[in-house]
């Protein structure tokens, strides 16, 4: 009994040391706020726990959360991709247009979409890993390129998804588990496997110090390319989720995922290269989603209480971007926390390291 408690205690302490811990705390705080605010606004304290409620929240935000998880892989190997958002739109466009144009089954469109995502990711990877161009500006250039491609494939928003598909995506397994959660869990499972393979370790080494990784017999370019391709696959899955969620095509949507996913990752505790994990990106993204949801309930609560109070979508967009910036500001605190942890480690070693030579 006591050994069980001990092992829980130990793993808790180990979790506290991981970079994902600050992100996890942020996530828990945001979750609490959401539960409380939603309870107040709807008049039913446990409104959040209805499967329909959290199910639709998850369904609508799974693409964004996946974008942050994909982004985290790049950050680990020391790259980043700000065009990741518009890549979701690319996948969406291919998903819709391939069945529509060639009359093939929907799943063929999906495979084509994942293929398109992989090709774009390989191109971006080639620019940043092989040609060694600054990843940030490569992403900026690719926003234009992908936008152009999207619009030439699908000039205006259009298209449909068979009802059975988007209904299935929006359903609950066993009445409590949303399908989108299963998708998220599957992608996270992919990460857990990756982490337990040599490639996972090599990713951290390349991100932390490419020269030393090279000296240890690792090929930094190959590792960065692999990370880009895995990211491309996740974006493909995320783009399909986006298609199922909107049940239509739009060549210019989701662009802001690029910046938002980056900020979510950093807020969740990822550093630029070799520090953090996919859990950081996931928690950071959940934090954003939940805070935004809380704000929504806060406004709906206000409009109930204050007569004549109404909020335009402009206001909501504004508030959500201000939250983004505040999130950036918060990284000062979270990063400081991590620096402190590290500094404590230093000072401990420093004291322990005191020795008297004979």
């Amino acid at each position, binding site marked *: 009994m006591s050994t069980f408690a001990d092992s829980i205690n130990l793993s808790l302490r180990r979790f506290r040391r991981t970079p994902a811990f600050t992100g996890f705390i942020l996530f828990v705080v945001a979750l609490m706020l959401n539960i409380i605010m939603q309870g107040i606004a709807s008049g039913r304290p446990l409104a959040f726990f209805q499967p329909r409620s959290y199910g639709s929240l998850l369904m609508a935000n799974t693409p964004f959360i996946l974008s942050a998880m994909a982004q985290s892989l790049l950050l680990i190997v020391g790259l980043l991709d700000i065009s990741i958002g518009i890549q979701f739109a690319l996948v969406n466009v291919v998903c819709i247009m391939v069945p529509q144009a060639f009359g093939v089954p929907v799943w063929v469109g999906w495979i084509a979409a994942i293929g398109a995502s992989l090709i774009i990711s390989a191109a971006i990877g080639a620019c940043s890993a092989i040609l060694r161009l600054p990843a940030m500006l490569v992403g900026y250039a690719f926003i234009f390129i992908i936008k152009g491609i999207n619009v030439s494939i699908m000039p205006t928003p259009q298209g449909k998804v068979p009802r059975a598909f988007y209904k299935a995506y929006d359903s609950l397994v066993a009445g409590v588990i949303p399908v989108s959660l299963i998708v998220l869990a599957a992608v996270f499972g992919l990460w857990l496997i990756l982490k337990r393979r040599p490639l996972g370790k090599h990713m951290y*080494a390349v991100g*932390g*110090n490419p020269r030393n990784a090279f000296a240890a017999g690792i090929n930094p370019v190959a590792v960065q390319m692999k990370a880009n391709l895995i990211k491309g696959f996740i974006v493909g899955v995320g783009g399909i989720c986006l298609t199922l969620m909107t049940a239509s095509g739009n060549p210019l949507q989701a662009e802001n995922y690029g910046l938002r996913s980056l900020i979510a990752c950093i807020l969740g505790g990822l550093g630029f290269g070799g520090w953090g994990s996919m859990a950081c990106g996931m928690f950071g993204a959940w934090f954003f989603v939940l805070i935004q949801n809380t704000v929504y309930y806060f406004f709906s609560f206000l409009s109930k209480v204050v007569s004549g109070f109404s909020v335009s979508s402009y206001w909501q967009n504004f508030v959500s971007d201000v939250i983004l910036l505040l999130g950036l500001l918060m990284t000062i605190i979270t990063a400081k926390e991590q620096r402190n942890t*590290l500094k404590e480690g*230093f000072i401990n070693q420093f004291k322990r390291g005191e020795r008297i030579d004979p």
Partner: protein
Amino acid sequence: MIQLLDISKTYGAVQALKQAHMTVAPGRITALLGSNGSGKSTLIKILAGLVSPNTGQVLLDGQEVFIRSGNDAKALGIATAFQDLSLVPMMTVEENLLLGDEPTRLAGMLDQGSIRQTVASLLERFSLKCQPQDFVQTLPPSTQYMLEIAKAVHRRPRVLLLDEATAALHQDEIDVLFKILRQLRNEGVAIVFVTHRMHEVFELCDEAVILRSGETVKSGPVSDFSLDDLVYYMTGQRMQEAAAYEGLTHKAGQAPLLTARAISLPPRVKDITLEAYAGEIVGIGGLEGQGQSDFMRALLGASQIFSGQIHFDVAKAQFKQPADAIKAGIGFISGERNREAMFADRTIAENIFAGNTAKGRRFTFLKKSAVNRFANQAVDTYQIKVGRIQDAASTLSGGNQQKLVIARWIAMQPKLLLLDDPTKGVDIHSRLEIHQILRQCADDGMAVIISASDTDELMDIADRIYVFYEGMVSGMLEGENKTHEHLVACMMGVCHIQPERQEGGA
């Protein structure tokens, strides 16, 4: 077993290796010797696959091989412990030790059990007390070096390269290491051992290869050499009791310009007390990484001290950033020219004017001719060889670049000038000129604090020498005490010489 033939390598204008050659035999420990900048590290990096030679051949068992990456080196059975470490600081001890060599089991998954076992036995073999899950970043330097060596040894190499492996190690760690190296030698491993410590050569090594200015000047069994011979081949001069510069002693009753008392600044500086008087040159000696750089940066306000007190020019000094210290009359010259001193893309004139640029009102009109006049004057005074002062500073040679940086500061007339290993990679002629300039400044009443990795340089220029060892002052050499033997002994931490006038402790 391994032969290097006619290896040459140039970095820009600098020729690091000039048709160097070396032969390494199995079951022998070969000492690779040479003074700073003689090309030892470049040679090691070529074997490790980090640097590609311009010309020359590498033969392994008589076959020519091409080592283009760390992976190639690994495949050929070459493992290296680098002087500047190849550990990834943000990863754990366990991950670092097995990086690029992780044992896997079914379906390519990591074999955690085997990893744990291997790491535990490695740590045990090297008597390391750190935990497998510790982040390397948080470990003391000596442990990091041991890990670097352990990582290389774990590869079971046929050829093991150790680049100044012992520089940061404690005596007990060195004992452990030597035991392991002898064991490996008996197993038939070829070992290349780069060191600055001559006694280690005689204690451990079988063969010696000596480089000077990128050329192999001598090689043969260690038993053929005496200590004198080694030093002669490395420096080109016979060791002799040169009339050492005695050094000034500051006048009694004079108040120190700078007093640093019990300064500590983790992780490198533990407890440093130091004084500097106007008109003298204070040397700071020690092996690399004993806290010299960190201490200087603390004086400048570039990093904040953890505890202790600094008094400058009578007042208590609390500089928040270098701008404050410079305003108070301190100047700083870094030996890391490219990283910390040069504005390589800017013109020579702008580089010289940089100290002036940093000071004074920002939104005033600067006449171009005024800047040029200032620069021309400095170029003339300090005899910096330039094409035109409007050329980019990167067109200058290393020695002239350093003179340029020194000119920048001396033109500002600071009361105290800090120099952190200023003559690193500077040719001997420029070095002498820099020494003369500094002596002139001191005679004019400036206080100069200079740290140097070269012991001869310190003996030549400094009036008094503080020797740093593990973030503390292991010796203050002055007057009769200021001898080469004392300096080296204090650097190794085997001797403690304290100033006669003990200041009140912390």
